[in-house]
Each structure stands twice: as C-alpha cells, then as structure tokens.
C-alpha cells in the first residue's frame, strides 16, 4: 500500500515476507476453540472485538447527546431519555471501554511476549475475566433494554438509592461483575510480571509498556474491590433499605462519595497509565532511540499509581469536606501532576538526536502529546482549590476529562492498535487512510472539546438537557466537531477490517522495533517462542537490533 520513501515498511524484510503457515490464529479452528481458549493472544482478540462493540454503543449515546445539545431547547428527546443517554454513555465508556481497553487487548496480547514467556500465569482466569466482562456487558445491555438507568455513572446517593425508579440495581450488578473482570486481569499481570519473566529479563530491562501495566494493575487490584463493596451497599440500600448512606436514617451520603472516589479516582490512572505505556513504545520505535530517562519514566508510572490513591477527595472540594483535608488533597493533587509532566518531557527528549519517521502510530502519539498536555494542565486548574469552585460540575470538567481520556487514552489505544496490528494479524493497513483518520480525529477532537472549556468557564453545568440560549454557538461547534470525530473513529474500523484480508503482508518486524514481540513471527505462534529467549540486552537497544538483523536468518514456523 503505502510506499512513500519515508516509511520503514520498505525494508527488504517486508518485501519478501510471507504469512507464516502456522500461527495462533489458525492453530485451532472452530468457534469453540476461541470460546474455550487459554491463549492470551486469542483472549486479547476476543476482548478487542467486544470492546470495539461497546465502544461504538457508547459512541452512539455520545452522538445522540451532542445532537440534542445542538439547540438550547429540549427538543430531540425527553429529559429522562437524555439523562439515560449520558448515564449509559458514561457507564459503557468507563467500565466497558476505557478500563479494559489497552490492558485487556494490547496488554493481554503483549505482556507475556514482552517478558519472553508463553502465556500469562493463569490462562483460565484470563478467560474467566473475559467472560465476566461479557456478563457485565450483558447486564449493562439488559439495563438498557429494560428501560435504561439515569443515575449518571457516579451513582450519587441518595439520588440513586431513593429517588430514581430505573434499573439501578441491574447497572450496579453490571459494574460489580465488570469490576471483578478487571481485578482478575490486574492480578494476572502482576503475577506474570513477578514470576514469569524470561531468564535475563530483569525489572529494568522490561519495556516501559510493562512497567505502566504493572502500575495500573496495582491500582486495579487495590482500588476495584472498594468500588465493589460500595456498589453492594448501594444495591442493598435500594433493595432492602439499609441506611449506611441514607441521611434520614443517620447514614452519611458523603461516605458514599469518599468510597466511590477512592476507586474512581485511581480508575482514571488505571485508564491512562497503560496508554502511557503504549506511547513509550511508539515514540522509541519511530525515533529509533532508547526512551530518554528510562528509569524516570518507569518510576513516574509507579509514582502516579502511589499518589493516585491519595487524591480522591479532590472530587469533593465543594461538598463541605473540612478545610484541612481540602488543603491536603489539593497539595497531593499537585504532586500527582508532576510525574505526568516528567513523562511528557522525557518523551519529547526521546525525539532528540533520533532518526524520526512519521508513520500512523507516531501521528497518534503526537496527538497524544498535545491533547494530554492540555488535559493534564487543565487538571491542575481543577486541583487548585479556589479555581475548582467555579469550574467543577461544569463543561470544563467534561472537557478536561475527555481531553485526558479520549485525547490521551483513546489516541494511545488507537496508536497502539495501529502499531501492533501487523503483529496481531500479520497484515498492514493502508497507511494513507490511517494517517487520514489520525488527522481527522485530532481535528475533530479539538473542535468538539475545546469549545467545552469555554462553555465551562462561562458556567454551563454538565448533564444539562436544556441550556440558556447564549451557549448555543459553542455547542453547535462542539456538535460539529463530534461529527468529524465520529468519522475519524469509524475509518479505522473499516480499513482495519479490510486489511484482515487484503492488507499487505507485514513480516516479522515492519517497524524495525526492538521489543521481543517483534523478534518472532507475525502473527505469533500459539506458544509465542520456539525456545525460551534469554535476554541479554536492555529494552530499546537499537544497536543490539542492528547487530542481530545483520546475521539473522528469519525462521518462520
């Protein structure tokens, strides 16, 4: 497809490449061989398919929300319907897309290979995670079909426990189950990283992708159970009327806020950290240079995970928490911003003295830099106590969250998918289309969410079905941007599917990257490695790679 002179795809390796006869995709046949598989790569593909499905479901809700907000009047749907739209959008996108997106697909596929092992420590639990995810998804769809849920994804008590008559318990069950899916994924990763590394793969030889997943897994394992018990208490309060969060019985609704955000703040780091791992791999590969300050980037991931646990109350600054705790949590919020800044600068300096090419994954990484920097900095706005009073619960926070989650995480996810697609499927996608989609989604994204910052400072509250007329122009811009963004997200679905059959054969290492995953065939064998690799070089060692490719005879199974 793409044969511009600047891409690496022209290397001899690719021109002569053929699809390996035996690989994990054709090792066994039939639907059951997929549904009962223990192979981490196949489970990753199962996840990829189901996550994409839910992403587009959530996307449809987003589209309808933006369509309704085209005019200030509530004209497209009833208020209840609108409330269900944004609630379902949040629940689907957060619990069924963002949390599992990179870890369950790319992480599942790559972590064992990057560590030089044959599978995750517990393949059956890995499969169980996927089934739990599906069960969670099914419950969400059930809640949707039986009439939806309109609590917002935050389930604020006592609204969710006493004042709504929608399917709160069904949705709560969905989140409870999906939570255990995420716990088991995290647990599997931690054990694998601790116990399954190939000989010579020391902690500081691991790719930063693995470090980022390690940090995110710790958050999953320690944070998610608190959400689980909180959700259980909400469901019990709704069904049998216990009074733990009910102010009329002496309970404290603020306790719910504390418990909920104790998970839900770390959850945003669960979502973003794996994305950061993807960016590290991409930036290094396309500048053909070791990541600048490897140790700093690795430790900043751990630092984010650590501090991430102690900032939850910054969601509650205006709720009447005591002044002292407001001060402490604001200070810690400032501290957690620093490791993110460190990462951005380290990635930027990775480019220095590199030999940079601009393939699709790199374009997504550049989009990530811009959008994540804005998202991160606006987080500092919200962490500053006095500023938070005016900005919280407005469109500013919506824009901030989307800049980090969509601009950061989703761009990283798409970058990662484009980066490892040749490894996962053995085929290339058409570069011209993929570059187009990267640029389209970048433009569309900014058009959608930049006006929302202004709207937020003007004071437009979030979750408003109708709004004062003077906010219309900015909302029209935002909706227009959402259309462009939608096109940017649909394109990959089309050409990636197309490439499954018609894409050029990728070969083992189309990007000439150093990771262990690129040294084996694409798509890999079921057992990943013919022999257990012995690691004798650092991560991102391009001299080792050059040396290796000079004398290597490619073996294809």
């Amino acid at each position: 497809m793409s044969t511009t002179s600047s891409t690496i795809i022209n290397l001899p390796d690719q021109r002569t490449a053929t699809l390996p006869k035996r690989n994990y995709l054709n090792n066994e046949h039939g639907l059951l061989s997929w549904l009962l598989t223990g192979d981490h790569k196949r489970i990753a593909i199962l996840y990829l398919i189901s996550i994409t499905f839910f992403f587009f479901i959530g996307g449809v809700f987003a589209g309808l929300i933006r369509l309704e907000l085209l005019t200030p009047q509530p004209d497209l749907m009833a208020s209840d319907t609108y409330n269900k739209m944004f609630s379902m959008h949040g629940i689907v996108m957060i619990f069924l897309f963002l949390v599992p997106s990179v870890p369950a697909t790319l992480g599942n596929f790559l972590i064992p290979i990057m560590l030089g092992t044959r599978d995750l420590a517990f393949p059956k639990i890995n499969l169980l995670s996927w089934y739990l995810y599906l069960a969670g998804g099914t419950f969400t769809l059930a809640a949707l079909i039986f009439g939806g849920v309109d609590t917002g994804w935050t389930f604020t008590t006592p609204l969710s426990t006493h004042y709504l008559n929608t399917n709160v318990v069904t949705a709560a069950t969905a989140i409870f189950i999906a939570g255990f899916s995420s716990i088991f994924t995290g647990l599997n990763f931690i054990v694998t990283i601790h116990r399954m590394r190939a000989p010579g793969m020391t902690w500081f030889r691991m790719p930063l992708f693995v470090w980022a997943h390690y940090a995110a897994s710790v958050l999953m394992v320690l944070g998610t159970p608190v959400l689980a018990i909180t959700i259980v208490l909400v469901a019990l309060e709704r069904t049998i009327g216990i009074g733990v969060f009910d102010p009329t019985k002496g309970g404290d609704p603020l306790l719910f806020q504390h418990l909920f955000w104790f998970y839900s703040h770390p959850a945003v780091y669960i979502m973003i950290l794996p994305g950061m791992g993807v960016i590290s791999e991409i930036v290094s590969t396309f500048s053909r240079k070791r990541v600048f300050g490897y140790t700093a980037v690795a430790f900043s991931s751990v630092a984010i995970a650590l501090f991430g646990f102690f900032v939850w109350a910054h969601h509650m600054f205006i709720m009447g928490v005591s002044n002292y705790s407001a001060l402490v949590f604001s200070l810690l919020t400032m501290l957690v911003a620093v490791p993110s800044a460190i990462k951005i600068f380290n990635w930027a300096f990775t480019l220095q003295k590199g030999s940079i090419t601009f393939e699709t994954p790199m374009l997504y990484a550049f989009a990530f830099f811009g959008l994540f920097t804005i998202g991160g900095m606006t987080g500092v706005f919200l962490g500053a106590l006095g500023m938070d009073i005016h900005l919280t619960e407005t469109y500013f926070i919506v824009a901030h969250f989307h800049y980090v989650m969509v601009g950061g995480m989703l761009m990283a996810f798409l970058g990662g998918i484009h980066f490892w697609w040749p490894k996962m499927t053995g085929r290339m996608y058409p570069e011209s289309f993929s570059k187009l989609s990267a640029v389209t989604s970048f433009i569309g994204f900014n058009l959608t969410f930049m006006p929302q910052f202004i709207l937020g400072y003007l004071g437009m509250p979030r979750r408003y079905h109708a709004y004062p007329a003077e906010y219309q122009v900015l909302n029209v811009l935002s909706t227009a941007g959402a259309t462009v963004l939608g096109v940017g997200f649909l394109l990959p679905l089309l050409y990636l599917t197309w490439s499954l059959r018609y894409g050029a054969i990728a070969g083992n290492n189309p990007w000439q990257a150093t990771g262990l995953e690129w040294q084996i065939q694409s798509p890999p064998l079921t057992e990943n490695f013919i022999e257990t690799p012995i690691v004798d070089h650092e991560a991102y060692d391009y001299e080792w790679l050059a040396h290796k490719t000079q004398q290597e005879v490619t073996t294809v199974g």
Partner: protein
Amino acid sequence: MDNAVVVTHPHTHETAVHEEHHHVALPQHRHHFETEEQQREAGTFGMWLFLLTEIMFFGGLFFAYLLYRNWYYDAFVSASNQLNVTLGAINTVILIGSGFFMALGVWAAEVRKRSLLVLFLVLTTVLGFAFLGIKYVEYHEKWEKHHIPGEHFDISEFVNPPIDAKTGKASEKPLAPDMAQKTQVFFSLYFAMTGMHAVHMIIGIVLLFWLTWRAYYGEFSSGYVAPIENFGLYWHFVDIVWLFLFPLLYLINRHPLK
C-alpha cells in the same frame, strides 16, 4: 490414584519443543510454566494478591463501621448488646476448628494421604455448615426482634428497654429516640459485614465440595497440592475476617450493667 487425571488436564498445546522439558513429572504441570516450582509460586503469589483485594473489599466496610461507631457511640453500644455473644463465641470456636481441620487437610495433601485429606476436607465443610446454621439462628432472632434494617425496623426496645424481672431495673440504658434510630446504622453494618462474610463462607463451601470430589479421586495425593494450599489460604482468610468481626460487632461495646 488412577490415570483419569491425565485426561482432565490434556496438554492442549503439545509441541515438539515441549518434549525438551524432561523434568515434567506432574500431569498438572501447565506447559507455560518453566518449572513446577514456578507454577506453585505463581499460584500462591496470585492467591495472596487476591486476598489483598479481599482486604480492600472488607476494608470499605470496616472504615464505615469505625466512622459511625465514633459518631453514634451510644447506639452502637446498645445495639451491640442485642447480639448473642454465646452464639457468636460458639461460632468463633467452630470457625477456628474448621480452620484447624483445613490446616490438617493441607498437611494430609502434602504427605499424600488421600483418605485423611478427604476426611479433613469433609470436617472443614461440616464445621462451615455449622457456622452458617448458627448464623441463620442469629439472623432469625434479629428478624423476630425487628432488628433487620428497612421498613420493619423497630426502635422501641432501645427507647424502652424491657425491665429485668430479677433486679427490677431496666436491662439496658435507654436511648433517646433520635439516638435509638441510629441503631439501624449498626444493624445495617452488622448485616452487611456478616452477610458478606457469610457469602464468602458459602463460596468457600462450594469450592470445598469440588475439592473434596477431586481429592476423593486422588488428584491431590501425588504431590500436586497447590489447589489445597491456596484454598487453605482463602479459608483462613475468611476465618481471620471473622476474628475481626466478632470482637468489633459483639464484644468491644459490651459492658457490665451498672
């Protein structure tokens, strides 16, 4: 004892390379682990991590308990006195006994004694059932006293404590009505905490049935003890949670009547 085990754990990804692993002794060895040692370590490590998750799960409840106990101390004292310490103590003993048999079970698996292992697993299960039975009696008592939070919750006993026939004095310090209502928070937490604990017991008992079945067919009598060991960790964890619940809910507020 028989070879049925091999059938239940086929090597799904048999490759030529696999034959290199001459040290593979157990049919339960999974191909993706380099050594049995690694497999066993990974399993135990995973179990400990899972228990960490469980600690966080119960942690949320303990946090809520400490907070409300601090706020509504008098209500917590009175409500706590309504719990049946005798039954609670018997349950504690039962659970410790159950844990003891579980530990013996692990030992029996390690020394490869099939019938002993099955016996100890059955004893563990029986004691688990006994615990749940007594818990049911306790819950039923709460039901009769209208101490289940919700619509039928009744505070009259806390506002007007029954008069003790022998001493002629109130059996309990009466609570003001506003404080008496807070006993509902105590019982909410009591049911949430012991209920979650009971759910863990039930899951454990289901697993015990499955393990006993496998043990009966000799799966754990040839040196493959990881499932027994890891389940033992889980069972002991559930015991330990109770060892925190019992004093917190039943004992620490108890005081001799003045």
